[in-house]
């Protein structure tokens, strides 16, 4: 069954959706959208380094994403606003990454594959990495769910209940780095933020509790992956962007329905 490239691609897409959607809810609630985007952009430097050092792209991307996220967290509150720091670090590492890739003679590097993903080329071992990473992220988020939610609502409330919001922030940062690393092959660094944010945003209007929003977002992400790949196959369009297009259409459709219901009621 896994011999079919479409089956592998679908499994990869759904795997990323499982990790990205619940994590994306926190990204939306905490207004970290730019943070996710920046972490992903920084990952291209990791890709370049791992190609130069001949190590796994997954490991390199994750290491750089993690370092960037930690540096931003450390530097925030020392004079620069968060978005300024992110803008400096993320786009600098993207630029350094692109320049570094150009030095890599000998191997022909298809940069497009890392910027926009190459989901149709997912191998069996990629699948293991993607599902392993996704399972880790889902487990992390599920384990810390209540603590993450409390820290998101109010730092003081979290402290008063014996939690450490800084630790929860760190857990989110780590989960984000893992997600970025596993999603590079599927949607590429430029569209990872979309997989985080669009399903969560589309689910908002349908949900009454944080938990239902995460579940609905996961379903929307998975549907987008499956439908996007089918669409890409039929229409011969790029796979990663097609997945994001379906998610965006679902976002628009669900909002229109919600808007009509509200104005009709």
């Amino acid at each position, binding site marked *: 069954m896994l011999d079919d490239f479409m089956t592998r691609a679908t499994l990869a897409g759904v795997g990323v959706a499982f990790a990205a959607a619940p994590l994306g809810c926190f990204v939306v609630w905490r207004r970290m959208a730019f943070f996710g985007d920046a972490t992903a952009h920084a990952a291209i430097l990791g890709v370049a380094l791992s190609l130069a050092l001949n190590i796994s792209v997954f490991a390199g991307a994750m290491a750089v994403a993690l370092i960037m996220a930690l540096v931003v967290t450390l530097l925030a509150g020392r004079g620069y606003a968060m978005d300024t720091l992110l803008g400096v670090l993320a786009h600098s590492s993207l630029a350094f990454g692109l320049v570094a890739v150009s030095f890599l003679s000998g191997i022909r590097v298809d940069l497009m594959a890392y910027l926009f993903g190459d989901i149709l080329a997912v191998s069996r071992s990629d699948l293991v990495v993607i599902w392993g990473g996704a399972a880790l992220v889902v487990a992390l988020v599920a384990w810390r769910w209540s603590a993450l*939610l409390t820290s998101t609502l109010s730092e003081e409330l979290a402290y008063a209940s014996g939690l450490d919001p800084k630790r929860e922030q760190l857990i989110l940062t780590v989960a984000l780095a893992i997600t970025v690393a596993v999603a590079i092959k599927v949607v590429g660094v430029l569209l990872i933020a979309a997989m985080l944010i669009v399903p969560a945003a589309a689910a908002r209007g349908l949900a009454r*509790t*944080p938990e239902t929003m995460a579940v609905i977002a996961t379903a929307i992400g998975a549907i987008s992956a499956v439908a996007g790949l089918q669409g890409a196959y039929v229409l011969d369009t790029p796979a990663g962007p097609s997945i994001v297009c379906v998610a965006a259409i679902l976002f628009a459709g669900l909002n229109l329905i919600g808007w009509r219901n509200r104005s009709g009621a």
Partner: protein
Amino acid sequence: MSLITVKNLSVAYGANTVLRDVSLVVEPGEIVTIVGPNGSGKSSLLRAIIGATEPASGEIFLKPGLKIGYVPQRLHVDPTLPITVERFMRLTDRVSKADCRSALAAAAVPDLLKRQMSRLSGGQFQRVMLARALINRPDVLLLDEATQGLDQPGSAAFYQQIETVRRDTGCAVLMVSHELHVVMSASDRVICLNGHVCCEGAPAVVASAPEYRALFGTGTGGALALYRHDHGHDHNHDHPQSHEVDD
């Protein structure tokens, strides 16, 4: 045994010392109010007690197993975060629906279980926060400017609720406020804070203390005394309770 003991606490942010050598004790069942002007370190003191701020020096002892019910100064529920009152009540403790209902009823906001937090009025929101803080039967309730954003009748009603809670459950209350006349009538003890403890005691004693008057003007002249500094005016109220709204 005292619930909270703070000994010679100092708190600093960088080179800026906001609290110097503060000591205080909260005993079971008493209502202690901390008053002080803006920037006097009131919120830093509460943050240090819940462990959100590391003390620069000094010590904070909590009774072992102390259950704290915390009502923060302001809680912003992002509009992208859907959460019903019922889910919010269960945020940090596993509680039954029946307990949620009775806690909301006790806080005078029944029938809100299914409402979205973001759709509540300011007064309803604060009462739901109070109900959540009380649901696990805390030993002490910490309130940080809990009536910010409420109008005067609203905050007076809120503090009456606090007194009712103390009477019914016997839990101690440590609160921070600048709404002097309202909170002082409800307190057993008032601590006047301005970087250090200026004076401390029963409301009437504090209200007539020279340190307090230097900070807030005379008597229980209401929140406006904060800005007026009406030093020429001089008579001591022995019964601050009788002054609900007198500005």
